[in-house]
């Protein structure tokens, strides 16, 4: 071949290669099959390349051309051209075959899936009918048609009905589903799952038909929604309702209680009993473990269909109460699971009062009064005060009476404050010898909570106090004890009023007046004198007490008192007589024994004889506090111990029906001062001091009762006929209104899921948004053994909060939603509660037995089919066609064989230039 022609030929091959590659890249590799690049429609027939990349076969064309150009074969040019064309056609046909060209075609073949309900609600007779229907379908099936069988109960199953091309229909007894060990799996009906399984059974190129044989009762899924989906899958759904009457069956469908049940109130439980035919049974209603007292056992004559039974009952003790209704001795009954139904109801009990008493042995008076007023009273010592708000939340009202401040730690005080302010609790602080200022409550959290201040303004009017402090300055007091004793003296000084008289006598073997009897107003001088006390030696009590006696007996004061502090042993002779003499002149003696070395018997005797108190103090650091408290007590800055009538200062609802002005006299109270409004003074003393004051603290009430609630200052009140009513009404008005707001909760069981919805509105009927809600589900059952789980409720719309959760256990469940709103500081403040209950007594399969014909009719309508079709109708294409795709690769292979032979012919037989004529020039 001349060089020029070679170049031309080479360029041609290169061009062919370039164009081929470009075409392949652009039209084959660059096009997405989804874009429809390899779909064609011609004369109503769709063509499609499934593997267009196989068209790359054409890319060998340049190689063939190259080989042709270098050919040594002795072939005329036309034959060479023909040969390359035939070879190209051969490869092209193979390429088309490999690229899987398919074409659409219409067929009329029908594949029918028979769906047979084999759940427990289907009687055996109906199953036998279904078996006959299956036989009829097997007979009606055309040669090209297909028939498949799916049975379903809790789950669906594909049953092979053809073995080795022979029909092998299952026996009726084999239709019900069981596990390998014989356990029944028929306590549910999921028609939807059966239909969904069938979608994967229709082979391509067949008209899809599904025939549902069922009673239409479903426990899971939704047939109507699935029927619509079936249509979307191209499946025509027919339904064949079971016509057999349901088996003899009695089922308890529901047991309902009123929304609100109160203790002691008679109410009705309503039971819904289904009977498939007239029969009789015995019903037993249990309240908890015992038969229901009012209406426990009943013989029933049941009519076919729905029967409504009403039982009367009453709850005597509040709390969660479970009612269980059980049916037995039923004449005709197929399933036992549905013969019992239980429901749990939360009955609010009597209001509960937490009563914390500093002197529990004297708590019976108020306890009895409150019990008589239908309150449950939980009496506790200060040490047993609840440790958490959650525990405190159980109470409707809290009373703290006559408890010293040091016995009521700060965390407990803060709990009380939160209980009142945040939970809306009611709180009464009652006085006594350790109440208010006497108990050291001034400037405490409780004072902040109460409507009264504890620094009484009447102190100035009170008569003076003469106080003698007799301090041991023996050698054993050297160091810290002496310093703390001085501090205690100074604390006493600061507690006394200016007109009160104070004397300090320090003694060792002899007494020395360090501070002569003088008014307390000379504080700096007295303090300096106290500071001068130095330790000495020996301990002689009698002479020092006698010195104090002598000095006190000559001064004028409303109260005269001696505080004797010692840490050692001393002669006892004459002391008792001396103290008796002092008491006869209204001089009282309190003793303080410091350390273990003190003669406690002597000191206790002095205190008992002297009308005072004995304090054994192991730690010198406690001395100032004890002296202060002792001084407050004696000086009676706060306590007013006079007989006085109570006067009503302002009206109050809780005083209705109580002749408060005719109430007996009280014998004392702790003087306090009313805080400014909104504090309300309800009862007062003759002097105008608060006896009963109240105010709203946060969401709750704080009430101050400055007298006591026992047989000391209120001793006459205990005998008063209005005592019980007074306290009952007071507590009732101020107690916590549990669940200040109650929001309705709607609960619904769909399938195996519970859907709880709460709608929240504000007082002006707008939507209450931004609530943080949690749902607490308790059950099955009640009490401490009941399982409990918490889940959040999400806001899904203005004012709407929802929660969904699966319920896979049987029994009665209580639902309680707690709603809170975030405060500005981010803390959640309780807002409202919601209550509901759901019951899932037994598998839903046993709740209903009458066929749901409406559901089956609607399903057939939605699925494009009919009810009760004949088998021939189902297998009749009725003009319907379905498009399927036929692969064409084998046709291309056949054509390729022909091309192959033609190519061979062209190469083996000289067809042109047979005479070998030379070319004419």
């Amino acid at each position: 071949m001349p060089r020029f022609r070679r170049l031309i030929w080479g360029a041609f091959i290169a061009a062919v290669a370039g164009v081929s590659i470009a075409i392949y890249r652009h039209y084959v590799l660059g096009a997405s099959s989804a874009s429809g690049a390899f779909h064609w429609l011609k004369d109503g027939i769709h063509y499609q390349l499934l593997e267009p990349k196989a068209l790359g076969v054409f890319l060998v064309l340049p190689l063939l051309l190259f080989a042709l150009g270098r050919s040594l074969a002795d072939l005329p040019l036309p034959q060479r051209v023909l040969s390359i064309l035939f070879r190209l056609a051969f490869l092209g046909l193979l390429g088309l075959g490999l690229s899987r060209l398919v074409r659409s075609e219409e067929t009329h073949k029908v594949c029918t899936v028979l769906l047979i309900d084999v759940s427990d609600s289907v009687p055996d007779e109906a199953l036998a009918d279904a078996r006959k229907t299956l036989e009829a379908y097997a007979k009606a099936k055309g040669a090209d048609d297909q028939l498949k069988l799916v049975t379903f109960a809790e789950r669906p199953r594909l049953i092979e009905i053809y073995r080795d091309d022979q029909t092998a229909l299952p026996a009726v007894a084999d239709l019900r589903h069981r596990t390998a060990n014989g356990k029944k799996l028929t306590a549910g009906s999921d028609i939807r799952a059966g239909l969904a399984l069938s979608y994967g059974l229709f082979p391509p190129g067949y008209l899809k038909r599904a025939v549902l044989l069922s009673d239409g009762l479903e426990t899971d899924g939704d047939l109507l929604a699935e029927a619509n989906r079936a249509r979307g899958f191209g499946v025509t759904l027919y339904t064949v309702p079971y016509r057999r009457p349901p088996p003899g069956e009695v089922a308890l469908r529901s047991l309902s209680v009123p929304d609100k049940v109160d203790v002691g109130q008679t109410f009705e439980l309503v039971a819904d009993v289904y009977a498939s035919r007239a029969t009789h049974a015995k019903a037993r209603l249990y309240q908890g473990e015992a038969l229901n007292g009012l209406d426990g056992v009943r013989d029933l004559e049941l009519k076919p269909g729905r029967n409504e039974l009403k039982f009367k009952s009453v709850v005597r003790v509040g709390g969660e109460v479970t009612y269980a209704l059980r049916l037995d001795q039923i004449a005709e009954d197929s399933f036992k699971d549905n013969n019992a139904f239980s429901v749990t109801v939360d009955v609010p009990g009597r209001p509960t009062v937490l009563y914390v008493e500093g002197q529990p042995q004297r708590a019976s008076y108020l306890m009895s009064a409150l019990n008589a007023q239908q309150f449950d009273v939980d009496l506790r010592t200060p040490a047993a005060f609840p440790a958490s708000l959650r525990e405190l939340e159980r109470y409707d009202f809290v009373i703290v009476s006559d408890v010293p401040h040091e016995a009521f730690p700060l965390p407990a005080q803060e709990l009380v404050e939160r209980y009142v302010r945040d939970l809306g609790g009611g709180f009464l602080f009652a006085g006594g010898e350790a109440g208010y200022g006497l108990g050291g409550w001034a400037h405490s959290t409780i004072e902040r909570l109460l409507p009264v201040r504890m620094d009484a303004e009447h102190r100035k009017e009170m008569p003076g106090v003469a106080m003698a402090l007799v301090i041991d300055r023996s050698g054993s007091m050297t160091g810290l004890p002496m310093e703390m004793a001085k501090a205690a003296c100074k604390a006493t000084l600061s507690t006394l009023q200016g007109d009160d008289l104070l004397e300090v006598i320090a003694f060792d073997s002899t007494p020395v007046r360090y501070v002569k009897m003088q008014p307390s107003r000379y504080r700096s001088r007295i303090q300096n004198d106290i500071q001068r006390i130095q330790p000495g030696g020996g301990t002689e009590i009698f002479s020092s007490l006698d010195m104090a006696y002598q000095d006190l007996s000559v001064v004028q004061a409303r109260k005269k008192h001696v505080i004797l502090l010692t840490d050692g042993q001393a002669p006892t002779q004459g002391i008792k007589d001396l103290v008796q003499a002092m008491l006869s002149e209204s001089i009282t003696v309190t003793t303080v024994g410091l350390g273990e070395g003190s003669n406690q018997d002597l000191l206790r005797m002095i205190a008992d004889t002297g009308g005072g108190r004995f304090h054994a103090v192991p730690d010198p650091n406690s001395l100032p506090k004890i002296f202060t408290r002792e001084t407050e007590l004696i000086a009676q800055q706060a306590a007013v111990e006079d007989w006085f009538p109570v006067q009503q200062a302002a009206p109050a609802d809780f005083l209705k029906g109580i002749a408060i002005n005719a109430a007996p006299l009280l014998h004392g109270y702790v003087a306090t001062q009313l805080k400014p409004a909104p504090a309300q003074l309800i009862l007062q003393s003759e002097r105008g001091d608060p006896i009963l004051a109240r105010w709203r603290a946060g969401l709750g009430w704080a009430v101050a009762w400055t007298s006591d609630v026992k047989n000391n200052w209120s001793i006459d009140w205990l005998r008063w006929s209005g005592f019980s009513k007074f306290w009952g009404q007071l507590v009732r008005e101020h107690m916590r209104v549990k669940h200040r707001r109650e929001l309705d909760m709607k609960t619904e069981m769909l399938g195996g899921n519970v859907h709880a919805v709460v709608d929240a509105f504000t007082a002006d009927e707008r939507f209450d948004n931004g609530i943080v809600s949690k749902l607490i589900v308790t059950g099955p059952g009640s009490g401490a053994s009941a399982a409990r789980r918490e889940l959040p409720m999400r806001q899904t719309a203005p004012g709407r909060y929802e929660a969904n959760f699966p319920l896979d256990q049987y029994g009665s469940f209580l639902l309680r939603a707690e709603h809170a709103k975030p405060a500005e500081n981010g803390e959640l403040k309780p807002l409202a509660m919601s209550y509901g209950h759901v019951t899932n007594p037994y598998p839903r399969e046993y709740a209903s037995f009458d066929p749901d014909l409406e559901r089956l009719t609607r399903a057939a309508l939605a699925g494009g089919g009919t009810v009760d079709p004949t088998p021939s109708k189902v297998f009749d294409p009725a003009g319907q066609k379905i498009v399927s795709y036929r692969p064409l690769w084998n046709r291309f292979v056949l054509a390729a064989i022909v091309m192959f032979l033609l190519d061979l012919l062209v190469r083996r037989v000289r067809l042109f230039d047979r005479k070998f004529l030379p070319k004419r020039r």
Partner: protein
Amino acid sequence: MVLSGLPLAQLLMIAGGAASVTVLLYILKLRRRAVPVPFARIWDAVFRDRQATELFSKLRRLLSLLLQLALLALLIFALGDPKPKASLLEGRHLVVLVDGSASMKAIDVKPSRIEAAKAEVKKLVRGLGNADRALIVQMGALPSPLSTMSSDVTELDPAIDLLSASDTRADLERGLSFAVDSLRGLPKAEVVIVSDGVLGDVAEIARHLDLGGASLKFLPIGKSGTNVAISEFSVRRYPLDKSRSEVMLEVANTNDRPAQVELTLLGDGAIIDVSRFALGPNERLPRYYQDLAGASRTLEAKVRFADGHADDLPADDHAYALMPERRRARVLLISKGNTYLEAALLLDEYLDVTTAIPGKPLPSERFDVAILDGVADPLPDTVAAALYLNPPEGGVPLKLGARLSDFGFDTWDKKSPILRFLALADVQVADGRALTPSPGDRVLGASDQGPILVSGARSGHPFVALGFDPRNSDLVLRVAWPLFVLNAINAFIEEDTGYISSFRTGEVWRIPAPSAVDSATVTDPRGAQHVVPVKEGRAVYLGEQAGFYKLTAGSGSDAVTSEFAANLSDLAESRITPVSELSIGEKKVAPISIGAPGSKRELWVYLLAAVLALSVIEWITYHRRITV
């Protein structure tokens, strides 16, 4: 080996014919061109060469013939579509659960996760052994099988092409149940989950997981994902002032870092509010719009990053809501004249009241509510609900009890929407009749002498019956009277404030529809129409697309149309960060290894490929005279 293409006899016929022709063509000698050669010595050399290579030439010729015959044999064998006999080699049975949830619309892998999943599943199918069979299932709110259990690539491939992602979450539990049902009794069963792992609370599934012996495999999809979402969007009418409503919208940042977002609110297609704000990591921010101006019917919300770039999941960036429409209720009043009743009906401008004379034929058109005032006219099916006032014997679908006198409401159901806002404590009634409710009926109000206000339903038609003539009481003089009448009508026509015209995709919707119809038509956001069944006044439909829907019940002039919206509203689905390892409870799902592409092909493909290769070789050797 079995032949599933042309039968053997036919193949042999074709082979015989083609081989005969081939051999015949080889027997024919190609006539050589005669070329005069002037020099005899050259011929001597030629003949010497020829004698030396004659045997070799014969061999080349034979080789060429054999090559052609081999080509033919391969072609004809391919026509027979040979397949290994399946009974000799029991293969695996796979159910391939392809996640079709909203998160699979994420575009962190191009073009999207679902397209990536389709490509992976195609690889998986091609990597299957010859005896393996697979069922392709789209796992959405409900499992949707798209093929049969097949080994045929031509069936599986189109099924894979049909896979798509919807605006729902994938219900893995249902998907696995379906897989177990499909694999029951089949050997070597495997379930393959093809997913990004955004499958909700799979720990809950672990409690019930029973695969019945099938092994579980996981094929992860997706790389990473940043996303902001509108996780709630709904409108609700105020309970008192029904002409106004409130909108709630919640925007969520599902990323672990803060995001600046831009929220656009459109009313009736026009922008009415654009706001930009910051969201903390994984923060949900609710926003409320009271008395929103600028929208009369439709509301749409769109969210995107404030810097303008889109996130990886556009599906949850757009939400839809409809302003509650107050449709005019058609009320049929059958009364001899009752000023109090007529006055109460005048208070609501959305009531179309038609008055009928007792005993005369009733109008034939459809009514939402009929009020029968002391009359006993039978109602046709075209009346959806009825309010009976002081019904005579036989005029109400329940029994009348004893005559009552001088009574009032001692108890009433304060939770009932019909008695909402009503104070009935001191209503005085001169006389009336006690009502005897049937099982299923609800006593809404009762005196100490018996029930006097009862609600219920008969054949899907709800009713409320009042056991006395309101004019014989002081009820008509109270605010409670018109409230009672209007509440009852509102309850009948679903104008309850509890109704929210937004649905969640992936759930079965029960859309209020006239109870007299059997079916209704739902028009989805793409315009496709679906005929759906109506049962107990609710159209039942499983919606899987977000957007605006229309429900049409009845036809012609009686057609009742309502609209509603649907949204994804699923925060779990918006958290699109994919997982590379899937654990169900404490059980880690094993990853699946995809076989080499092409190992699962029909034999004919290999045969044709061999033919192709041989034919090219033959072509080259022929032209280079290696074979002749």
